């Protein structure tokens, strides 16, 4: 059962990571200049109002005491109440995080669909026209800023061709998938470029490996060689990259969500930083830390499956 103990070990390792991130966030947001009441009340606030509101939020107490209260509440499943939105943090996160998750998943899927076949094609037609065209196109995708690609997509496929809605978020599940397609494609554009370049060079490396020559000499069919030997081995580094890039994808979602008016967690995060909405920031950080850790875990498991030596 090497795989089982490997997974267990990894899950246990996640706990200190999440706790560490939480403590750092908790302290850092409080060290930022400005406090929730001032941020919320803006320039017109008078001192008495600011003090009254900060006290009602318990922010007049020392940071270690605030942290103890917070930890006590987290263990009862209570992440507190948003200062700006006046709603329980768990409710807000349950509304906003799934949106970003769906967007990120769709983007990751689209990126794979784009990157894997094209990387193979480019590797097999190395230094030929197809390779140059594929690499050139992705180079453009990589070098264009996300907000610009987003506005371009909205203008062409939304406002002009009217194939997709110009931003926003639908009411039903199907409608939402439809609304999320363009933002996901925007995110996938630069993401797939990174994946494609990496996979192409690994495929080129693997194709020239001796075991592939041996498989060929054995008389295996080219398709079998490609899937069982080349793909499986070439994927290892790409899977690592994919896992690591998921975090970046969350970051890209912040801009994409703004341009496409998608009510996701990225925008919530930005608003909470500007508004010094400590409870939402803490809650979101925990949720994102757990999610990214889980992604890394999944990456590790998949790698271990691709290459059993890793789990040892």
């Amino acid at each position, binding site marked *: 059962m090497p795989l089982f103990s490997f997974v267990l070990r990894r899950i246990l390792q996640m706990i200190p990571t999440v706790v560490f991130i939480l403590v750092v966030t908790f302290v850092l947001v409080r060290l930022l200049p400005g406090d929730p009441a001032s*941020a919320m009340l803006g320039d017109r606030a008078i001192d008495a109002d600011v003090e009254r509101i900060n006290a009602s939020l318990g922010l007049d107490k020392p940071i270690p005491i605030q942290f103890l209260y917070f930890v006590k509440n987290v263990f009862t499943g209570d992440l507190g109440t948003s200062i700006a939105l006046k709603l329980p943090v768990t409710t807000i996160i349950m509304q906003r995080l799934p949106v970003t998750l769906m967007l990120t998943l769709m983007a990751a899927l689209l990126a794979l669909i784009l990157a894997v076949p094209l990387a193979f094609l480019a590797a097999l037609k190395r230094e030929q026209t197809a390779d140059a065209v594929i690499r050139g196109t992705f180079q453009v995708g990589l070098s264009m800023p996300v907000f610009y690609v987003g506005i371009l997509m909205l203008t062409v496929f939304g406002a002009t061709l009217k194939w997709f809605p110009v931003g926003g978020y639908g009411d039903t599940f199907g409608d939402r998938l439809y609304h999320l397609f363009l933002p996901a494609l925007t995110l996938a554009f630069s993401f797939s470029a990174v994946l494609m370049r990496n996979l192409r060079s690994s495929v080129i490396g693997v194709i020239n490996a001796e075991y592939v020559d041996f498989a060929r000499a054995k008389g295996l069919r080219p398709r079998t060689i490609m899937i069982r030997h080349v793909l499986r081995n070439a994927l290892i580094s790409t899977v690592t990259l994919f896992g690591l890039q998921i975090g970046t994808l969350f970051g890209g979602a912040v801009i994409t969500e703004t341009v496409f008016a998608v009510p996701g967690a990225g925008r919530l995060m930005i608003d909470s930083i500007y508004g010094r909405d400590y409870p939402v920031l803490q809650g979101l950080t925990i949720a994102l830390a757990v999610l990214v850790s889980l992604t890394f875990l999944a990456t590790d498991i998949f790698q271990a499956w691709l290459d059993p030596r890793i789990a040892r």
Partner: protein
Amino acid sequence: MKKIAKAALAAVLLVGTSLSAAAVERGGVMTYGRYADSLFLDPVLNDANVDIWILSNLYDTLLLPTDDGKGVQAGLATEWKVSDDGMSVNLTLRDGIQFSDGSPITPADVAWSLKRAANKDNGIWNFLVSSIDDVTTEGDKTVVLKLKHPDPAILAALTVFNTAILPQKVFEAAAGATDADKAKVFAEHPVSSGPFVLQSWDRGSTMKLVRNEHYWGKGEDGKPLPYLDGVTFEVLPDDATRILKLNSGEIDGAEFIPYSRVEELKSAGNLNMELFPSTRVQYVTMNARPQVNGKDNPLSNPKVRQAMNYAVNKDAIIAIVTHGVGKPMTSYMSSATPMHTGDKPLYAYDIEKAKSLMKEAGFEKGFDTSILVLAGNQDEIGIATALQQMWAELGIKLELQQVDNATRTQQYRDGVFTMREAAWTDDIADPNEITSYFVYSPTIDALHTGWKNEEADKLFDASQKEIDATKRAAQYARIQEIYNAEGPIVPLYETPYPVALSKKVHGFLQIPLGNNFFGRAWLDK
């Protein structure tokens, strides 16, 4: 000949308006693109324009602002009378008014709502009604406000969002121990007194309002208001996306059109580019304390401040930053604020005068100073870079410090900033709010600058109790004279509210205070 043509034109225009008035159409849902979502729909405890500017669609007030935002007209109350000594106000409620749940709006609801608004422990707007001592009821239609002192702004205050009328019974029945807790629950599914009711709210995305069947207002066709079946707000934070969505017909209106695109949208055939008059003023605040952060502060010298004012070419800034949409300020308060005085731009550009003032002040060679700029805000960065070049003429080296809003607010409130950019919009149709913050030192040390003028403070105190309108206007004229001459700001420009509407939208109104009124809006079929 010219006169006849004018008369003919006027006649045509008149016929035109009455024709469109006769042709009011009912039904349909208007979709409106907003730059940010609302936060908290409680009239008393909210603290942001994103709430304030839409609240009047949900909650009605005793009096309503006139369309120009300067006067008052009947709302839930049809008659109002301030007593001769100015110590009380008698209001008569409209017949048959109801909340959206069909229950009657009673004097008890009114008294409770007003007392809640005036309670010092509630929110940050209670200062607008701080003169209210008690509210009593007489019979089933009369409400009497007893005041601590005569308050010339009390009628204007009764049009402001925080004096909106809520159903006492429903509010108090909401779960929660404190008023703030109950407000959170109530504001999720509020019972309305205004033309619309909240139907659903997807945070950060869409808010749907539907018509309040029990609203008292009557339309031009004699049937109940509102004309629309509903209003849907879509949150579209990106300017370009908001305009694209309007152009593609997916929404019927969009707020906060960037100044750079106003000209372009004016010429778009399918849109009406509206520039609603506003009370918004843009200015630079200068710390007037002799020392800031332990260093001598040249800005404490009124001559230096005047010199810097004369050295700023406002027309150039208006052209660069607002693309010609703005206009120069003629007083610290906007020209749409009641009792505004001044007919020529403050500190018309005069570099020679500026240089001689600097010499008189002993700063012939200039000095180093700094300004706080909101990071990533194009308007603020544009203004600051222009100021940097203009003040360089006086030998002043201006350092731009880009910070986020909370950081800036902190330095501002602590009085340790040197200069900052800022904008202001009135919440009440009276000069007292802006004057209290800009001029009157006990409120926030005159915009946290430490500036203080005894005469202005005394005049303000007196004006807050002066019910003779002429005398009060004279007091305000003097306050403006003092502040405009030596106050701690560089007035830059006034701007209207840029709203783009589809051609099929009629009757939508944004008043100078910023409030969006959908109650009389209607759509072509």
